[in-house]
């Protein structure tokens, strides 16, 4: 088991190196001249050339890549072309905000989605099930920004209950300002978790071991949780894990709608400012988080399903 974990962690290294390379390569194709971005209209041809040399932009792409990775290992992602601030500091400033949003969204989605999926599956084809399926379909289909805007319209503009944007500074204000964006982000995730829970529960419900469990005379709640849910968990965990990965990368649109100072807003701002190293830094952090979320899911499998665990220990 430990050897498996070690192997998986080591495997992250080539994955991340390739991701960085691909992003690096694509960014180099954009017709952005960093020197022009920094100096603006004041730059003379000489000063532009000097700056390019200072930034190492005159070197071949591969050398630039190696230099970037070398700095990255020291925790240095360079400085922003626009603000001149350290990018790594900027990102780690904004990352907790994104994490708060992502984690609360996933928590909401799990707390609503899993019970809804379970009840829906147990009452298949009833009015409840049809309603849940319909609502989940809408939840999966409606784009996040629309949900967000409608939420703002109703709860901030009409009713005035919740702030329309920005993150609250104190804890009560923070919680209040979190409600709208968190529910907005969770809509989609919740719909996916509900649908996945329903379908994998339906698969398990028909299994013979459920009849065995019932024939022992155990309570229906025990049958549902100990025998059904624990067997239905693998695909549900997969969906949750992927969603956490996606959301940690910043819910780009929602963060912008609600002016939430997270990584998603930072990335969009950096793109508009043509701030290449900031974009690159964000992508690196996002891909690391995404890979880690996936790794956690893979490791969780082993704890949920002993059959998978026995494969690992071979």
């Amino acid at each position, binding site marked *: 088991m430990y050897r498996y974990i070690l192997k998986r962690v080591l495997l992250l290294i080539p994955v991340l190196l390739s991701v960085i390379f691909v992003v690096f390569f694509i960014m180099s194709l954009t017709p952005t001249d960093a020197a022009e971005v920094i100096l603006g209209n004041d730059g003379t041809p000489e000063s532009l050339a000097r700056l390019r040399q200072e930034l190492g932009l005159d070197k071949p792409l591969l050398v630039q890549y190696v230099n970037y990775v070398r700095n990255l290992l020291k925790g240095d992602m360079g400085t922003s072309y626009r603000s001149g601030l350290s990018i790594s500091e900027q990102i780690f400033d904004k990352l907790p905000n994104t994490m708060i949003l992502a984690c609360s969204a996933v928590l909401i989605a799990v707390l609503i989605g899993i019970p809804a999926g379970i009840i829906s599956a147990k009452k298949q084809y009833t009015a409840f099930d049809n309603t849940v399926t319909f609502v989940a379909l809408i939840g999966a289909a409606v784009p996040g920004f629309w949900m967000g805007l409608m939420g703002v319209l109703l709860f901030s503009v009409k009713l005035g209950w919740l702030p329309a944007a920005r993150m609250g500074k104190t804890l009560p204000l923070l919680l209040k300002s979190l409600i709208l964006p968190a529910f907005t982000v969770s809509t989609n995730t919740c719909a996916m978790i509900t649908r996945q829970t329903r379908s994998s529960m339906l698969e398990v419900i028909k299994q013979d*071991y459920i*009849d065995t*469990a*019932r024939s*022992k005379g*155990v309570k229906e709640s025990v049958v549902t949780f100990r025998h059904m849910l624990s067997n239905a968990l693998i695909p549900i965990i997969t969906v949750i894990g992927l969603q956490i990965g996606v959301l940690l990368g910043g819910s780009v649109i929602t963060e912008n709608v609600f002016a939430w100072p997270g990584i998603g807003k930072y990335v969009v701002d950096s793109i508009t400012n043509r701030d290449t190293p900031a974009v690159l830094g964000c992508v690196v952090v996002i891909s690391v988080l995404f890979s880690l979320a996936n790794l956690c899911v893979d490791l969780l499998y082993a704890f949920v*399903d002993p059959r998978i665990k026995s494969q690992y220990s071979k």
Partner: protein
Amino acid sequence: MGTLLEIKDLVIHFEMDDGVVHALNGVDLTIHEGETLGLVGETGAGKTTLAKGIMGLTPRPPGKIKSGEILYEDRNLLTLNDQEIREIRGRHISMIFQDPMTSLNPVMTVGDQIAEVIETHDRISKQDARRKAEEMMEMVGISCERYPEYAHQFSGGMKQRIVIAIALACNPKLLIADEPTTALDVTIQAQVLEMMSRLKSTRNTAMLLITHDLGIVAQNCDHVAILYAGKVIEYGTVRQVFKQHLHPYTKGLLGSIPSLIEDVERLTSIEGLMPDPVNLPQGCAFSPRCAHAMERCFCEAPPLYLMEDGHSVRCFLCEHSSKEA
């Protein structure tokens, strides 16, 4: 021997989108304390429906119990509430399912699965339940060291032993075994059956043994009921059914067993197929395949005729020789 379970005119239908499946159409059966009753029938005759019906495990919907009674120690199981039926399951009546490969929970240790039934019914501590579960494992011939292992680490025969341990853990009075050896290979079949009959005789457990293997019936059962299209068409002791069978279907069934003595090219079989339970023929369900069918067989369903010594047959051919005639 007192009566343990009495099924009276049980009718179970499955109401599907494309028609009503007439799975059981009036089954009458009696199981006495400590006896083994064999229930024989082709695939689709309603054997499993009957077993699940007794356990209260008929999937509803689409299943629907139209009428009938299942009397266990004079209590009608069909009118019990959820709580009461749960107390019967596992404690008084337990069941072994057809396929051991799929009837154990894959993410729970086998030991915990045995202990679960004990904890549910006996008010004892977790440690005592575990100890009792370990005893059960030893009793079915599996070392209790394998308590913390999972189903995938066991072979088919071992899994069926675990299932048997679960079923017998609370000393039930009735064990329903739904084709317990169909999924096992022949040598393991013999071992498992031998163990089951040993355990049931030491504990005086009655058994409803569902099978389509007549050899198993001959070896293990006291009484036999032949099920066809959801009705018992012949019932009697093993001797009566095997030696003095009266129903043409039973005759065909026994005739299709290949003989070891005679040298034959082709296996004998009953012409035709079981009727579709969605549209059963009028009259006797066997009439379209029956060589002795008379005109009335096609429009009138025969009642169960009582013959000598508890032997009963559902066929007009026996009308005149029955005790009531």
